[in-house]
């Protein structure tokens, strides 16, 4: 689809043409969104802030998956496992090395990135369907190791350890209304970095591997090292997200999820949001989290109406709604919500001539 811009919108330099914000309304939209996000704890209730917090760190994990699957075209079913690595790494660094959370956070990202590299290496020789299966290895091995090795550190059969709250000087991040800012700021940083990647050499190399790996190789892109870079970035972002999640839930371990279920959920979020777009993770995660709320609500209502079935009703709607949404998107909008949004914008530009 052509990028439509209003008449009279010209660029005077290539740098200007590459810019993200070029229109007054871009600045307004961004400014307003940031204002709304940063004041959320002031006007939203605790539940809303907690949901926004969950959305924020989940977006970071899905952004990572987007680099690997959306941009580079390497399907992965192990994003949750790398979150687990990040969560444990950050928790252990804070508990046993006495580091501040804010130092442990980037280190946790690096640790997850390193583990991601190792599993990436083993997955590089296979493509598509086989790759998806190869990545399952990480998704099974990592949670298993967390339960069966280093039990005194990782919690063993409990499947969980306690994670302390971050502290910065005198500021305590004990309340979600303050913790939310950590997730938000990290998300803003990752978003900016990923936007840059998508418009520069690295991002083009990723997409060229996805769209035509043979041509990419003949044009000098080293498939091996670039796929590894994608694995590394994806696992790093998973690590970041996992660390943030662990400290916000005050615990980490298989008891808190991090299973194949979550990995599939992230992939579904990405598909629904739009693979290979910067907006996709935002839209997909928000959509699914809101859908989960809706299904919990519906489950609750039905459970009240049919008390004898309440056990099943309370838990069954999430997977049903998720599966249904994913199916509908795959059939009717395989390019996700981000593509819908582009079409809407193009239609607005072309008004009143849009179909």
């Amino acid at each position, binding site marked *: *689809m*052509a*990028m439509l811009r209003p008449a009279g919108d010209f660029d005077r*330099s*290539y*740098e200007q*043409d*590459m810019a993200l914000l070029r229109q007054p309304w871009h600045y307004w939209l961004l400014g307003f969104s940031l204002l709304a996000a940063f004041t959320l704890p002031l006007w939203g209730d605790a539940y809303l802030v907690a949901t926004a917090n969950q959305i924020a760190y989940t977006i970071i994990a899905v952004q990572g998956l987007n680099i690997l699957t959306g941009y580079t075209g390497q399907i992965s079913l192990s994003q949750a496992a790398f979150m687990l690595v990040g969560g444990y790494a950050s928790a252990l660094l804070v508990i046993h090395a006495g580091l501040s959370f804010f130092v442990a956070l980037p280190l946790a990202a690096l640790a997850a990135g390193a583990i991601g590299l190792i599993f990436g290496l083993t997955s590089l020789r296979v493509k598509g369907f086989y790759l998806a299966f190869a990545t399952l290895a990480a998704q099974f091995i990592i949670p298993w190791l967390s339960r069966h090795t280093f039990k005194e550190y990782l919690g063993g059969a409990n499947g969980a350890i306690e994670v302390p709250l971050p502290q910065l000087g005198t500021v305590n991040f004990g309340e979600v209304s303050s913790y939310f800012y950590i997730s938000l700021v990290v998300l803003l940083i990752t978003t900016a*970095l*990923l936007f*840059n*990647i998508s*418009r*520069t*050499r*690295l*991002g*083009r*190399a990723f*997409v*060229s591997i*996805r*769209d*035509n790996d*043979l*041509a*990419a*190789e*003949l*044009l*000098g*892109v080293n498939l091996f090292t670039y796929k590894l*870079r994608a694995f590394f*970035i994806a696992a790093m972002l998973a690590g970041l997200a996992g660390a943030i999640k662990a400290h916000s839930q005050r615990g980490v371990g298989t008891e808190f999820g991090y299973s194949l279920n979550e990995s599939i959920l992230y992939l579904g979020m990405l598909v629904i949001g739009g693979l*290979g777009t910067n907006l996709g993770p935002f839209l997909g995660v928000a959509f699914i989290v809101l859908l989960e709320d809706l299904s919990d609500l519906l489950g609750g209502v039905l459970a009240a109406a049919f008390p004898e079935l309440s056990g099943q009703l309370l838990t069954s709607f999430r997977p049903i709604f998720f599966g249904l949404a994913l199916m509908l998107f795959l059939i009717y909008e395989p390019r996700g919500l981000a593509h819908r949004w582009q079409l809407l914008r193009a239609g607005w530009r072309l008004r009143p001539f849009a179909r």
Partner: protein
Amino acid sequence: MTSENILQVEDVTLSFGGTTVLDRVGFDVRAGEIRAIIGPNGAGKTSMLNCISGFYRPQGGRLLFGGEHDLAGGKRAAQLGIARTFQNIGLYNYLSALDNLMAARHIHMRQNMLASALFWGYARKEEARHRAVVEELIDFLEIAHIRKTMVGALPYGLRKRVELGRALALEPKLLLLDEPMAGMNAEEKEDMARFILDIHTRRGVTIVLVEHDMTLVMDIADRIVVLDFGTKIADGVPDAIRQDPEVIRAYLGQAS
């Protein structure tokens, strides 16, 4: 072998599980010429290009580039300055025309992963600098109006042209074109022929042109190799090829 030969193909033999696709084929490509490879369908033309671009590893023979580099099975074609287009178009369909060309600047750019992510200082300048190079090509190929269009949505003729642009963006010394005019109408073919001649004369790029259609090649090629069933049956200037009985026989067996 003389030093003016940019490419020397010596006795190249390629087979796939018993079927011989290229049988001791040898020819040279002089720097600055348009060298055509023609032949009926299945003659082995694409396979030859695949050998030159390092994608196939021939079982026998040598391919020397610039008199020294053996190309067989190597993955360094881009670094050595060899670019190609594909018979079935090998573009990055979900990138814009502009980004397809920018992607081919990959080996000429230095920014690392971190610089790309930060997009500050060097990376920013580098992007703008290479953008200028690419824009010059976009003007040359008259595709400015579609530069921001996703190439997957473009009509066939324009996609062929974008692919040519992408190959040029690599700044190759040797350009391999696999049936650049196949499936085009007369007007598009003429445009393409004009671009190929311009690339050759104005940009000084040596071209190996694979074409199925003999008449068109006769007009623009300096010398022609004729393949038939994997063997070279003729090699020479267009006028000689036109009268070659072997070539006439090979082509008479065919509709075109």
